[in-house]
């Protein structure tokens, strides 16, 4: 198997006396969709926070392309091409989709105007339009505030934005939770398309059929530990649920 892109070994994370992670491991390879599943409180969100730089683990090691890695902040992860789609979207509702996509990464006009901080709105709008079209976020107009869009469109913008900047890996925390059938299919489409471009996708979801249909691999967390790893093509919903609840354990998983 190829060298893992991102690997976590025996991560621990304590919040006071609460052990959210008790030696959790995790692996993501380039160009694969790997789902991270587990019951509520299994440590999925904490693990993703540690892997995306939002939180710092109490113990354990992170490897990126085989090299040891310390993530001090989300910016560190971003610099490596690691992006996150948060459950609560985190968009600026009063700004338009293009402004949101380029937020914190604005394109400035060339020359003196750019030196003065003048934005090149036209270039940003153009690139954003192309990008949204490519990733199937159909928007009637590119310059209305995000708040004027429907929930599903807002979600598509949030997904498209993260995907736009993720050159190596993208975490998606329940990206389809609030979506209708059509929108959900579209997000799953985006996930596959991103994977096909060689970017690793880590999907967190409670929807088992969805997990099986889109993933290449599945890793299961229980009580802050990895308890099982499956190839999506060789497993079933029953097996996944068994691993999540503790009815089934694999010896070599941890």
């Amino acid at each position, binding site marked *: 198997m190829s060298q893992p892109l991102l690997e976590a070994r025996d991560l621990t994370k304590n919040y006071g006396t609460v052990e959210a992670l008790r030696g959790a491991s995790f692996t993501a390879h380039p160009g694969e969709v790997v789902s991270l599943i587990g019951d509520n409180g299994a440590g999925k969100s904490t693990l993703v926070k540690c892997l995306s730089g939002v939180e710092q683990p109490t113990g354990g090691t992170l490897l990126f392309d085989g090299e040891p890695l310390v993530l001090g902040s*989300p*910016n560190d992860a*971003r610099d490596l091409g690691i992006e996150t789609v*948060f459950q609560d*979207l*985190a*968009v*600026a*509702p*009063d*700004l338009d989709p293009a*402004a949101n996509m380029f*937020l*914190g*990464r*604005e394109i*400035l006009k060339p020359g003196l105007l750019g030196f*003065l*901080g*003048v*934005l090149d*709105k*036209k270039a940003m*709008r*153009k*690139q954003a*339009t*192309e*990008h949204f079209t490519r990733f199937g976020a159909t*928007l*009637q*107009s*590119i*310059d*209305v*505030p995000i*708040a*004027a*869009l*429907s*929930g599903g469109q807002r979600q598509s913008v949030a997904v498209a934005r993260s*995907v*736009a*900047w*993720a*050159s190596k890996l993208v975490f998606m925390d329940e990206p389809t939770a609030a979506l209708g059938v059509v929108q959900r299919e579209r997000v799953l489409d985006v996930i596959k398309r991103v994977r096909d*471009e060689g970017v690793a996708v880590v999907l967190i979801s409670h929807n088992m059929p969805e997990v099986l249909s889109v993933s290449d691999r599945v890793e299961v967390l229980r009580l802050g530990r990895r308890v099982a790893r499956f190839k999506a093509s060789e497993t079933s919903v029953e097996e996944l649920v068994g691993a999540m609840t503790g009815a089934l354990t694999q010896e070599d998983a941890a």
Partner: protein
Amino acid sequence: MTEKTTMSSLPDEHRTSFLKRVAGANTLWIGLVLLVLVATFGAIRPDAVFQVTTLQFLLAETAVLLVLSVGMTFVIITSGIDLSVGSVLVFASVASAMAMNAVSGGDATNAGWGVIAFGLLVAVVSGAVWGLLNGLLISRAKIPALIVTLGSFGAAQGAALLLNNGSNVSGIPDRLNRTFGSGTYLGIPNIVIVAAVVTALGALLLSTTRFGRYTYAVGSNEEAARRVGISVRGHLTKVYLLAGTLAGLAGFMGNAFFRVAVVTGHETDNLNAIAAVVLGGTSIFGGTGSVLGTVFGVFIPAVLEKGLVIIGVKEFWQPIAVAIVLVAAVWLDQTRRRARNQR
């Protein structure tokens, strides 16, 4: 992935037409209200309203408030508030007048440009220091803006009174008053030109630059701004610094116009500036607004006041009329937001 994105010449097909965007903006409607007011007063007493001196006075009197309101626009777009601008103005005005007197041996009345420039520097820097203090307390110490600026509202006023034992400072250079205070260029008071330039720069800063974009983003969703790597604390500090600096400049303009640094009469400047900004369509909840709207918002109360006097209505009606328009403006903003967020 940007590198991969090809720069083909895709037309702006998704772009809403310019007319549609203009019609959808609050700014247009506020501007119409102002126009209707001017037209109404003008129709009743055209002889008195469209007089050069009337208009000159109206503009000159509002110039100082306009500069304060430009800074306030930035603050309110970040969903903050600055109650201290009037007191900072007084402090800057007193400090600047005293500094000019001090370097001219006690009376700066006949002082030259060097002294005037020094006075300007003192006004702007003292305004900036108050603004920086506000900004640091709000962004670093995490004290609500309402409380921080309520504190500096009292403190700056008190400090101004302490500086000169509670009295006004005279001795403003004649040269300053003749040129910037009462001088005109092509019939436009120079003080108005200064205010117009400041306003235009403020409008450009807000609508075309990264600084402006971050101002909107911080006010719209602070957490989202933080997650994309914007330094929210740094940005908030800069915005309050800007408001303080403009208040300092406004203090200097006041000196030039009134030929004296007055320690009273600015207690409600803060509320007038907030009212102007909100009237102009900037949301008190942050995230939206414009400097152009603020310009309209500054002139609506001023036109009402002047107009009511000219047509012989008791001017005591002015605050009542402004209050109605103000509450109606916020109510409209609320309704729009609710309608929008229901989707």
